[in-house]
């Protein structure tokens, strides 16, 4: 298996990718470099250009500009060979409702010159009990696992998963995560898009944070979070009648008193402050509120996450972006 570029360094290389639809720029000069065997995540809100990017990499959409090298080859020169080596799960595909699990996988298996035994794939995606069930009778999570099975039946070197857990309940989501982790363990390269930061943190070796068709940051989840320079995120809110007195100046003073590493940001009816020394920051914050006669309503802290990284990069939350 030569799942890498001629220089042995990239499973997927994207340079200067651009794509616009009518008057919307979907991808605006995007670069990526995915190493063989890693699980790489594109994290960003809906409309960030993740799906357009991944579909260009999958050879389903033509870019306006830029270079895409998949497994060391280009779509123009070796599209047919590449199709044999990729496993793809698209975001919105509904498989044929009237076919059974077994029939669906047999169909997809028949397209590939080499691949895995259909029964192995059924066992892998844990659908043994549903072998003969029609797709229409499957739950959302089972359908998604079947879609993953269809992506894996050709024994791919590189797997693209576009929002693999969107719309699933927490339990079904964890089952999909388990599957992706198993897949990682076999050394396959995985590229996935998601707008769930827990998913990116749990599954991905490296994450590119994408917004407005650009890569805002690219690193391991741990280093991205460390880049915030904060040990904790402190959330506070004040009594409703005191809210108008929290002016921009007051907020800057409060943040300064707490030793925040970045300006305070409004969220969920309160404000968030990234801080380093929590044991000093919280007393200082409380003292400053007291001094300004602002009655505290709520105080919470949490460990920084990729969500906070996204917020600090874009000023918006992933979930409401």
């Amino acid at each position, binding site marked *: 298996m030569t799942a890498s570029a001629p220089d042995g360094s990239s499973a997927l290389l994207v340079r200067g990718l651009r794509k616009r639809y009518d008057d919307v720029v979907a991808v605006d000069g995007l670069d990526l470099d995915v190493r063989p065997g890693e699980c790489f995540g594109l994290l960003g809100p809906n409309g960030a250009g993740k799906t357009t990017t991944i579909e260009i990499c*999958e*050879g*389903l959409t033509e870019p306006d500009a830029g270079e895409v090298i998949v497994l060391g080859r280009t779509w123009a020169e070796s599209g*047919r060979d590449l*199709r*044999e080596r*990729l496993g*793809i799960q*698209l975001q*919105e*595909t*509904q*498989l*044929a409702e*009237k*076919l059974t699990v077994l*029939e669906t996988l*047999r*169909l*997809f*298996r*028949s*397209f*590939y*010159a080499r691949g895995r035994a259909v029964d192995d794939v059924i066992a892998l995606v844990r659908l043994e009990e549903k072998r003969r069930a*029609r797709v229409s009778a499957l739950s959302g999570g089972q359908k998604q696992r079947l879609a993953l099975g*269809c992506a894996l039946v*050709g024994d791919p070197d590189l797997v693209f998963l576009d929002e693999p857990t969107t719309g699933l309940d927490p339990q079904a989501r964890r089952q999909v995560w388990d599957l992706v982790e198993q897949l990682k363990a076999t050394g396959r390269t995985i590229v996935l898009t998601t707008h769930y930061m827990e998913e990116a943190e749990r599954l991905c070796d490296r994450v590119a944070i994408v917004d407005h068709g650009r890569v805002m940051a690219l690193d391991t989840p741990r280093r991205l979070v460390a880049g915030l320079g904060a040990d904790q995120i402190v959330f506070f809110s004040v009594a409703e009648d005191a809210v108008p007195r929290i002016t921009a100046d007051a907020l800057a003073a409060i943040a300064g008193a707490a030793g925040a590493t970045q300006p305070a940001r409004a969220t969920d009816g309160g404000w968030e402050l990234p801080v380093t020394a929590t044991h000093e920051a919280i007393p200082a914050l409380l003292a400053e509120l007291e001094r300004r006669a602002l009655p505290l309503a709520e105080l919470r802290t949490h460990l920084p996450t990729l969500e906070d990284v996204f917020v600090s990069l874009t000023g918006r939350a992933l979930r409401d972006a």
Partner: protein
Amino acid sequence: MRPAIIELTLVRLREFVREPEAMFWVFGFPLLLALGLGIAFRNRAPESIRIGVLQPAPAALAASLDSSAGLAVERLADDSAGARALRNADVALVVAAANGEVEYRFDPSRPDARAARQLADDAIQRGAGRRDPLAIRETTISERGSRYIDFFIPGLLGLNLMGSGIWSIGFAVVTARKQKLLKRLVATPMSRTQYLMSFLLSRLFFLVLEVGALLGFGVLVFDVPLRGSLWTLAAVCLVAALTFSALGLLVSSRARTVEAVSGLANLVMLPMWIFSGVFFSAANFPQAVQPFVQALPLTATVDALRAVMLRGAPLASVTGELALLLAWLVVPFVVALRVFRWR
């Protein structure tokens, strides 16, 4: 592991047989249509025509009418009863006799009224003593192949080939496109030509069933003649089925919604429903539109089917129709392959 073309064709077959409604429209509906029209237009002893006689009428005249085989005579009380019976089409003719004179009241635009007038006049004049100068002999015929049902079954067969080809493929393709299944399929190494071919192949399978059911029904129930060779008939059906499948692919090659493909399919099929001589002879249309009528694939199909079934035409004599159908097969398929929207 089976080859992709087989798996793809099996998908088509499975999706079809697992859809009970589709089974009904393809098999049940044409049989019901044939049965209904066959009964409505079955050949039978001509019914008597109902006529009225105004009272009072001479006894001899009424007796002559009563004894006439083709007439059913009703006594009507007066002028207004006569006018009402005519207006309601209860009777085709009212006979009024007074002062040695006979009056016929009828609407000459109604063929049965004109026939009734002749029959009534004959009966009355003979009853009054008229003798015909020439001797007459009648021979009646009822030829298989000349009945309406004989004309209609090949038409219905052609209509069915067109409808199931265009509808089944149109809906299947658009549904797959709408569900992004087409996009998912082209993300695999699947051959696009094989995907489209699987539609044509699956049609061949259903063709045997559809044609078999309708033809068997016509032959067994209505004794429709099958004078040509079965092979010639099979060849015509095969080419026609592939042609309409190719048209189905073309109709569905760009449409994104079921509504859009329904509209297009109707646009394509409606002229053929009307002009192709399914229900009545296409020769009824004026000379000016005949080139258009004759260029339609359904006209060629129905003409060829009638020639083979009713007149026993050999393959060589339907080559014109087959050539036209082949053109309608190749051009739409190639165009469909080129313009097909996979996503």
